[in-house]
């Protein structure tokens, strides 16, 4: 049994222009996309943006077996249509556009790009009022951390470009999940699962795990309640924004288990578990274990070996656990027993160890995830503050506590709120996570060089390789892309050539690398891929 499976992360970033506090956040987000397009274009001298192919988007399909009618859906659920700037937003962005800026002639309509597919296989786009980076598909937790971190560098490069561009107010980006004024935005995970598994088993097996995993992967937050008005510190950024156990919504009545059934893959074979309950992590260890432990729990669920533990009130338990950084808070199980978040995690850990012993496992990342998971739970049980070099919420709490001790600050002091916010600033010179890491006070799993490479290079072992290399090699001819397609426009062919990529584990370097190596042009590439004389089924 293994932590390896197809997975990926999505980060919606907080965005703010301190010198232009009334700036429209959708316009600011579009600046990030266009600024990044400009940095890529300056390196490649070519079109960087591509249209998103919405053909296979099905945001209203519910995994429980039905669909929501469009007229009954919240407008924010209609993610299968391209976002557009309204007249006011266009006027705003147009009004701010100096002649030498980064808005391109190539972008459609308003002249503002709202979406890009990157050479590393990721998607960078405007989601509602935030810039979002969706990582390429990877096959293991460590790669998940790597391409998640690459996204932070992508938006960092974009905001640096904006800062250098005359006429634009500097833009700050925060990898957090709330403005502490009633608003939250997500950090999602996606896991590929077999369609044959009944969805109900996923729900039962996951809820107690999702309620308790914050003790490992919470990012910490100053303030309690959605508005953060109540004083204090809590473990999770997101906990107070969840109101339901199961549901299709992601922006309202947020559920612990999201039922969006949009596989972005062969639909009768796979489902994509869309996880919306999670904090955006800066700590590499937190992200690694968030992905690794979840993958192990999914493996147990698929084998019918998940622990039989059921919470009496999951949503209340989620918030109660988050509100107690001493980790002593107990929550009720349906059988009447009272357990802490650490108890729940230990129940899952023990089951995972037994599961791996029973079925055998690799000695690589799976063994590493199990060892780290166990060691951290022991550390947290002994003294949570000892985990400060590994976990975001503990690192943040330790820093806040040091300020409280030195300056005698109440939890309501705005300096503590600023530390909470600035922990997540993506700029290495301003972000407090990065200041701690610079001093060796945060354990690293990756090198900066690896991350820099992942900004441009796709993972080699999923269809993201095919997507990313098509973007890199044929930027003029690739006119659209999505998770499960790449669309070419070739002068020699009357119709657009849509290459479906519905198998996430095809389109790899092993299968398509030689085709890219041999093709001198997009025409040759498509001929080799689709031509009558040879039709290797490598991408689909």
């Amino acid at each position, binding site marked *: 049994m293994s932590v390896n499976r197809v997975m990926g992360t999505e980060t919606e970033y*907080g965005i703010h222009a301190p010198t232009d506090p009334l700036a429209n956040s959708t316009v600011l987000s579009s600046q990030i996309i266009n600024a990044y397009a400009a940095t890529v274009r300056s390196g490649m001298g070519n079109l960087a943006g591509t249209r998103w192919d919405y053909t296979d988007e099905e945001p209203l399909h519910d995994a429980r077996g039905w669909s929501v009618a469009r007229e009954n859906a919240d407008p924010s659920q209609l993610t299968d249509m391209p976002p557009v700037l309204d007249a006011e937003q266009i006027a705003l962005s147009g009004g701010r556009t100096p002649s030498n800026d980064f808005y391109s002639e190539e972008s459609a309509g308003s002249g503002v790009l709202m979406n890009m597919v990157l050479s590393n296989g990721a998607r960078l786009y405007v989601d*509602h009022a935030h810039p979002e980076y969706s990582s390429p598909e990877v096959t293991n937790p460590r790669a998940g951390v790597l391409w998640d971190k690459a996204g932070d560098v992508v938006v960092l490069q974009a905001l640096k470009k904006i800062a250098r561009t005359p006429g634009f107010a500097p833009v700050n980006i925060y990898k957090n999940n709330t403005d502490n004024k009633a608003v939250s*935005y997500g950090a999602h995970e996606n896991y590929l699962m077999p369609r044959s598994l009944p969805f109900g088993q996923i729900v039962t097996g996951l809820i107690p795990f999702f309620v308790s995993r914050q003790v490992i992967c919470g990012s910490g937050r100053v303030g309690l309640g959605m508005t953060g008005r109540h004083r204090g510190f809590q473990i999770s950024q997101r906990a107070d924004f969840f109101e339901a156990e199961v549901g299709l919504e992601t922006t309202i009545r947020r559920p612990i288990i999201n039922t969006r059934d949009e596989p972005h893959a062969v639909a009768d074979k796979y489902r994509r578990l869309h996880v919306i309950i999670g904090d955006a992590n800066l700590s590499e260890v937190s992200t690694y274990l968030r992905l690794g432990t979840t993958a192990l729990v999914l493996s147990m669920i698929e084998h019918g070996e998940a622990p039989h533990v059921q919470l009496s009130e999951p949503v209340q338990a989620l918030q109660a656990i988050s509100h107690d950084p001493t980790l002593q808070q107990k929550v009720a199980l349906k059988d009447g027993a009272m357990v802490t978040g650490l108890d729940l995690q230990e129940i899952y850990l023990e089951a995972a160890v037994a599961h791996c012993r029973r079925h055998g496992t690799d000695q690589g990342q799976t063994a590493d995830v199990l060892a780290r998971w166990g060691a951290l739970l022991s550390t947290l049980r002994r003294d949570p503050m000892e985990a400060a070099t590994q976990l975001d919420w503990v690192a943040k709490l330790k820093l806040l506590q040091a300020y409280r001790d030195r300056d005698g600050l109440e939890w309501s002091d705005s*300096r503590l709120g*600023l530390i909470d*916010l*600035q922990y997540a600033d993506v700029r290495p*010179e301003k972000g407090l996570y990065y200041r701690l890491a610079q001093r060796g006070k945060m354990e690293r799993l990756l090198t900066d060089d690896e991350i820099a490479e992942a900004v441009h290079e796709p993972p080699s072992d999923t269809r993201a390789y095919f997507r990313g290399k098509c973007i890199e090699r044929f930027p003029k001819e690739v006119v659209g892309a999505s998770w499960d397609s790449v669309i070419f426009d070739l002068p020699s062919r009357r119709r657009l050539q849509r290459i479906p990529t519905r198998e996430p584990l095809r389109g790899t370097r092993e299968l398509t690398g030689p085709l890219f190596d041999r093709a001198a042009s997009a025409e040759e590439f498509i001929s080799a891929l689709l031509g009558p004389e040879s039709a290797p089924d490598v991408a689909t």
Partner: protein
Amino acid sequence: MATQDRKNVEGRTQEEEYDEAPETPEPAPAAAAQAETEGTDDLLDEIDGVLEQNAEEFVRGFVQKGGQ
């Protein structure tokens, strides 16, 4: 009062002598704790210089629209 003043001085002197008396090196945990404290002071000094000006206004100004 002169007597009290003298007593106070004497008391302080005794304390100082007692503090200086042990010639043995400090035990490792105390040294580690002191290093930790100095490290924390140094860290906070650095972060003081990095934090945005006018915390209250900055935090109040960070207003986001809803997301997923």
